């Protein structure tokens, strides 16, 4: 079977790999000139945190997300499994209790427990939660590793090629275009996220740290070599690329709360993009004739793409439908 995958973001590359491993002849087309240049995956945190996400996401995200913990170490050996840490300043302790109530697979930490895990945070926080089974990765390196793996399997990624809906009529098309796919998915919306990348040799962290705050929730993901990714705002907007001063101030003041040494950090990069999301913020595989859309991964691209890719490949290659992630086009449902 020949399949054209449209989009070389995280959804497209994982779907292409699953299809290729399943025996299909796969080609990937990507509108941008280089890998990840125009993909919102580029700005991801890369946290593989199915249990933490249960704080605001549906149980399905936690269930599907656990597949990522087996998938990424296999596909991208640089995946780091050291768990994740959730902290709250003393005055926001009720938020930590709420987080603990809404999530599972965590251990309560006191000041000593926090210091034992992250010595640089010693004496700064009195209570936290540790999710030992979670992991993290560097999204850009993971994308590159997926591309290498595809190329080793003979899967070509054709860059600089815009999607032509009628141009691949003989192939099955897996439409993995993220927010750009909204032209075919009227119920898809963008949720803007802004992030920063800092170099701060004065701070050392071994694992992602989430700082709870009623207005400015922040996470810091260590990328190694004193580099940190700070994320991320959540704004109901399909706007891409524009980072506002206000968001930067909020992210940085939250980082400063986590550790004052961040005040001296060098800002390496600021970025923003629109996460693709359906109204329930859950992902979908939607069959539209010979086209199959894989979309709506929202803020869970690296967490959910392994599960979605596998199900998309199962559907395309064998017709297997998983009702948890597959739906009819709502327009077709209404007219039926």
């Amino acid at each position, binding site marked *: 079977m020949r399949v054209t995958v449209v989009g070389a973001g995280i959804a497209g590359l994982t779907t292409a790999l699953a299809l290729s491993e399943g025996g299909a002849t796969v080609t990937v087309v990507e509108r941008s000139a280089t890998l990840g240049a125009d993909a919102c995956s580029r700005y991801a945190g890369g946290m593989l945190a199915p249990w933490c996400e249960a704080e605001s996401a549906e149980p399905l995200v936690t269930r599907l997300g656990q597949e990522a913990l087996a998938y990424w170490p296999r596909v991208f050996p640089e995946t780091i499994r050291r768990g994740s840490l959730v902290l709250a300043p003393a005055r926001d302790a009720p938020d930590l209790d709420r987080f603990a109530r809404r999530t599972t697979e965590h251990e309560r930490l006191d000041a000593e427990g926090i210091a034992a895990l992250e010595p640089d945070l010693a004496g700064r926080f009195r209570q936290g939660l540790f999710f030992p089974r979670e992991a993290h990765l560097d999204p850009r390196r993971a994308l590159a590793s997926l591309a290498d793996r595809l190329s080793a399997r003979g899967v070509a990624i054709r860059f600089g090629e815009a999607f032509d809906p009628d141009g691949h009529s003989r192939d099955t098309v897996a439409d993995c275009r993220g927010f750009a796919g909204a032209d075919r998915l009227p119920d898809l919306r963008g949720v803007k996220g802004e992030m920063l990348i800092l170099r701060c040799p004065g701070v050392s962290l071994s694992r992602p740290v989430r700082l709870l705050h009623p207005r400015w929730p922040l996470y810091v993901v260590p990328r190694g070599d004193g580099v940190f990714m700070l994320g991320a705002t959540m704004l109901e907007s399909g706007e891409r690329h*524009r980072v506002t001063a206000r968001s930067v101030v909020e992210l940085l003041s939250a980082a400063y709360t986590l550790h004052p040494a961040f005040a001296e950090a060098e800002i390496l990069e600021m970025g923003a993009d629109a996460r693709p999301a359906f*109204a329930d913020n859950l992902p979908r595989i939607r069959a539209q004739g010979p086209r199959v859309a894989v979309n709506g991964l929202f803020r869970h691209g690296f967490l959910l793409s392994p599960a979605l890719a596998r199900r998309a490949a199962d559907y395309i290659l064998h017709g297997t439908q998983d009702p948890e992630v597959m739906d009819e086009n709502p327009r077709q449902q209404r007219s039926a």
Partner: protein
Amino acid sequence: MEVYGVTLASRLLLGTALYPSPAILAEAVRRSGAEVVTVSLRRESGTERAGQAFWSLIRDLGVRVLPNTAGCHSAREAITTAQMAREVFGTNWIKLEVIGNHDTLQPDVFGLVEAARALTTDGFEVFPYTTEDLVVGERLLDAGCRVLMPWGAPIGSGRGLNNLYGLRAMRAHFPDVPLVVDAGIGLPSQACQAMELGYDGILLNTAVAKAGDPARMAEAFANAIRAGREAFLAEPMPPRDMAEPSTPVLGMAFR
């Protein structure tokens, strides 16, 4: 409740921020029975109407939209946001917030009165988020407001009615002005208490959005608000210090 010539059967006004997803928000609005939802424009707007998808989800709820100026720290900022809101939602209604302190989210009542005056002159119908201060309330009415929305407690704190005496005094001082408790409500019992005081409505957001089951909490609030209103109309008995038996004891056998 009647505000600016519009009669509302539901006395619950619901905020649309902080929900886990728009789908859960829609379900919460449905089960709350709210006829008015507040929407924040400031952060979502961006440069090119990029929030359209979310706003059309809000419009699809089929309820009246009360745009707000959440996050504005000056009269000028609030006025600009209100004008933008009128364009986007085609309504003259505006929930006016001018924040004086970004940590406590306490209203800046001076900026509030200034912005209220400018906006009513410009044809807006202003719902001011204020404190329980009576003089500020009078100034807001002078500025053209026809409804007052005092806080129960700081925004998002869920502490209920912090100044019961002040809120009671406010109700007595403005017997004919619609009064809506806006902010600080965490539990249905607190909303019920405000309604028992004779308040006309409750505006809340976090207590529903951050509940484990927002839609269920929305319905709980709707029930509590209805109960409080009925209790107010039914004229509660006055409390007293000593027990008073509800059946006569004099002459009962074996006493």
